[in-house]
């Protein structure tokens, strides 16, 4: 297995496709989390089309790279990237949150291929990713484990339990990406329960930290695609992002955490997401 090695332009095109699909899914259902979908989209597209090694037709390969969507509410983005990567047919996206759909509001690994663990309640992804990384080390497999967390999500203590353990274990093949859009459900992270200086926090827990523009595909490729080498630390990528990225009236607005567009807003957003 090797990464798909899409070009940056190709990855940006995939991200545009994902945003348009997420928008339609949430508009059709009048339910979802577009703000967090859009802040995470470029990160997901970079991972699936430029970094990770996997075979969507054989999703259980022991040596595959793993991705854990810890911010499990951002299924508009997550299901879109899985469909784009070929885990399931694109037309399934139109069943998003419909009765008995495999596309539940939060991901279930027993419903769809490509989902490593069930998420939804926050702070669950990093501990599970830690276990996957430990298993890889025990089995002498060189797969990498990536976990995407929200930033507000880091207020959950379980993340820091796992971060401490990962640092102590020198798990170089574990990467956490923080979708640092600085907004949580109702307000800014810093006015709710501040996280800064987030980089120092991870360093203090034994992690190597990189800061990156989470919408700059070239920069994401450089940081996430770099070989693990002899770094004896887990990697934390703080991806500075914009909640609602790509739609002018959604950007940096907490109300678009789970806001749903009207018909006029839907048309306007589609125009902006060409």
């Amino acid at each position, binding site marked *: 297995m090797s990464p798909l090695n899409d070009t940056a332009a190709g990855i940006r095109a995939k991200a545009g496709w994902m945003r348009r699909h997420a928008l339609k899914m949430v508009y059709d259902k009048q339910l979802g989390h577009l703000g967090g979908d859009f802040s995470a989209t470029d990160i997901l597209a970079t991972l699936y089309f430029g970094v990770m090694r996997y075979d969507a037709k054989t999703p259980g390969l*022991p040596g595959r790279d*793993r991705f854990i969507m810890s911010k499990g509410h951002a299924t508009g983005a997550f299901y879109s990237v899985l469909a784009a990567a070929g885990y399931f047919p694109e037309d399934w996206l139109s069943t998003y949150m419909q009765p008995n759909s495999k596309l539940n509001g939060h991901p*279930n*690994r*027993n419903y769809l291929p490509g989902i*490593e*663990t*069930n*998420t*939804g*309640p926050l*702070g*669950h992804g*990093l*501990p*599970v*990713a*830690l*276990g*996957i*990384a*430990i*298993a*890889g080390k*025990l*089995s002498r*497999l060189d797969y990498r484990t990536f976990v995407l967390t929200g930033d507000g999500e880091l207020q959950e*203590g*379980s993340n820091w*339990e*796992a971060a*401490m*353990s990962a640092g102590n274990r020198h798990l170089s093949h574990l990467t956490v990406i923080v979708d640092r859009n600085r907004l949580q459900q109702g307000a800014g992270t810093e006015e709710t329960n501040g996280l800064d200086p987030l980089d120092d926090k991870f360093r203090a827990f034994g992690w190597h930290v990189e800061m990156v523009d989470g919408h700059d595909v070239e920069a994401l490729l450089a940081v996430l695609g770099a070989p693990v080498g002899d770094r004896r630390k887990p990697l934390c990528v703080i991806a500075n992002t914009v909640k609602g990225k790509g739609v002018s009236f959604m950007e940096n607005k907490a109300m678009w955490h789970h806001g749903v567009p009207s018909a006029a807003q839907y048309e306007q957003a589609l125009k902006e997401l060409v």
Partner: protein
Amino acid sequence: MAGSATGAGEASRQGWHDCREAWARTIEGLAEADPNIVVVVNDSVGSSKLGGFQKKFPDRVINVGIAEQTLVGVGAGLANGGKIPFVSGASCFLTARALEQVKADVAYAKANVKLVGQSSGIAYGELGPTHHSIEDFAWLRPLDNLTVITPADPWETAEAVKWAAGYEGPVYLRLSRMPVPNLDIPNRVFRPGHAELVREGTDVAILACGTLVHLAVQAANLLAKEDISARVVNFSSLAPFDRDAVRAAASLGAIVTAEEANIRGGLGGAVAEFTAENMPVPVQRVGFPGFLPTGSIEDLFEAFGLTVTGIAAAARKSLARRAR
């Protein structure tokens, strides 16, 4: 009567065992045969009796420190990576502190994780309700996909551990540290989801689990002297729940349940739910009512009727209600 709480005087306790020894012996043997078996602990090597395992397989003891949410999450991750993780810690912390991880990462996700609750029930005695695990049945029983097993003796503990290792799916093994005798049942076969007949009887059925099963046998012996024929059933599987065994018990017309747990939501709760909907008969529940006062294991068993005489009294009461 001194010693009546655990059903025997000191002299007759030879041959009684702490079931953790059977657990430790069995998991070591399984690990010899299968390199994928690992244990995950929260600073609980000693209390899980895993010192020997650690000597033999130091790399296969994953100690996350005092961090139960990560303890269970790591178990789910190890299963994803092809390991067979036995996640072992004191039941009170494993099932309460990490309940959401047990629900989402293990049960809902159907992860191949074996949760091993140590020192369950009131094993920590005087340390009090923070360290008792008598609510675990109530909060684990409704979780789909999770098999819940409470072995009654060393033999069943070993069999349950072996079975769990070979079964693909989530399991909770609720172990005690209170010494118990091996039950005297010929040709035993461990079948999860099936209650085990320990002693036949025709007047009243005593459905018990864990440390209460051998007490129920002695209670049946006591009742026999009064010409009351009591059936004793080892209800080690709380989930899947053996409805046929409860139906058969209800057909006698009088039931007693006995468990080292809070009677709200545990085995007694499960039996009461089922009989109320399907075959309403008197059900007397022996167990604990809630947070317990300070006391040793023996004190608390005695005070709340988790005794031979307490179970026998519950049987008489159930029979009296049937007669009305």
